[in-house]
């Protein structure tokens, strides 16, 4: 059976060898608690992600009082829904309107609101996005599938200090009768970064 071959593990890449080396040395020094790596993996794979931000957005779309609180004090309003913690301690929510489009970036590293959006996607952390979004956002947004009307104002937010940003996208037309939970299902990660409109 030729299928047997597929059970051989893939060759280990140099970076995997380096990770394994550091892991082994730290483990020998008693610095890696049992289950720590599995816990990190579980938390970011199942608890923390853009589904949290989507709930915040859907609540803001359906509850004007909540939206007002969210725009006035993002951290406190997001905490009302149970989200907070590392990289979400100082949240500012910026609202898209027909005339104004907001988009977030971190030119110096990879700052991103973990509690509401999860870990940043690879492209957000890679050089082209970080270099270009502050210089030619209209061109880059169009290239990423988010063309804007020529007269729309673009506000770019570079997360260079302690604040982390979340974009409040516009509620799509034709969703007037939808329940909050169904609305949350329409909200994408990209719309909360500001590289897509709904």
């Amino acid at each position, binding site marked *: 059976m030729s299928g047997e071959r597929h059970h051989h593990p893939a060759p280990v890449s*140099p*970076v*995997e*060898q*380096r*990770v*394994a*080396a*550091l892991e*082994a*040395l*730290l483990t020998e*020094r008693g*610095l*890696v608690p049992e289950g*720590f790596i599995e816990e*990190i*993996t579980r938390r*970011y*794979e199942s608890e923390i992600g853009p589904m949290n931000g989507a709930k915040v957005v859907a609540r803001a779309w359906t509850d004007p009082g909540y939206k007002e609180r969210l725009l006035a004090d993002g951290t406190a309003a997001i905490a009302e829904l149970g989200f907070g913690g590392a990289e979400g301690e*100082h949240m*500012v929510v910026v609202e898209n309107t027909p005339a104004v489009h907001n988009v977030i970036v971190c*030119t*110096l*590293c*990879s700052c991103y609101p973990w509690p509401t959006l*999860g*870990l*940043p996607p*690879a*492209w957000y*952390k890679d*050089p*082209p996005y*970080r*270099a*270009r979004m*502050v*210089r*030619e956002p*209209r*061109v880059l947004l169009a*290239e*990423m*599938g988010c063309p804007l009307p020529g*007269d*729309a*104002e*673009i*506000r*770019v*937010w*570079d*997360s*260079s*200090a*302690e*604040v982390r940003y979340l974009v409040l996208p516009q509620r799509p037309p034709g969703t007037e009768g939808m329940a909050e939970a169904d609305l949350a299902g329409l909200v994408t*990660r*990209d719309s909360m970064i500001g590289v897509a409109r709904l």
Partner: protein
Amino acid sequence: MPVDGIHDLGGLQGLGRVAHSPAEPAFHDRWEAVARALMELVAGAVEASGGEFRHAIERMEPGHYLTSSYYEHWLTAAATLAVEHGVVTHADLEARAGGRFPLSGPVLAPPVTDGGPDVGEPRFGTGDRVRVREWHPPGHTRCPRYVRGKAGTVVRVDGTHSVPDVEAHGAARRHEPTYSVRFDAADLWQDGQRGVSVHVDLWDSYLERP
């Protein structure tokens, strides 16, 4: 000896298209989760501040920085801090890895032993015009190069936070207000696009009156 690092990417040209994907897993492979966990463990063990951690990434050899992924940055920074703080040796790492284990370059700035007095009250308010200092510090800073020397308008006054330029280089700390400053694209770039503004969050000491 000024250091304007490769990580300070805002405005650089020639880097090509964004490899956009609409969704991706939290970790593409198990080693990424391990690298993330090890960085957290090392930072905790050596009591590295956020500034020291970021600076350890920024000191990577530029070619390596540009051609390696985010979690390889974290791995390199974790290993560098572990070596610099005496937790492991570079020789141990290379022996275990069975090959080269590139680390970040040395810190070029002198250690900061006195962070100076905290700044409690914001010097600027919403609507004030400010200018970013035109300077090139030899160590870590969170002042992007593309706004240095540029004038903008304060749009938000945030809380008081530890200054990264100080905390990255020793145990000393200084706290200052931070501000969100709006720059018109036309004031940042010769080819600045109409109707575009860029907002950058800056510590008090990065700013001066225009």
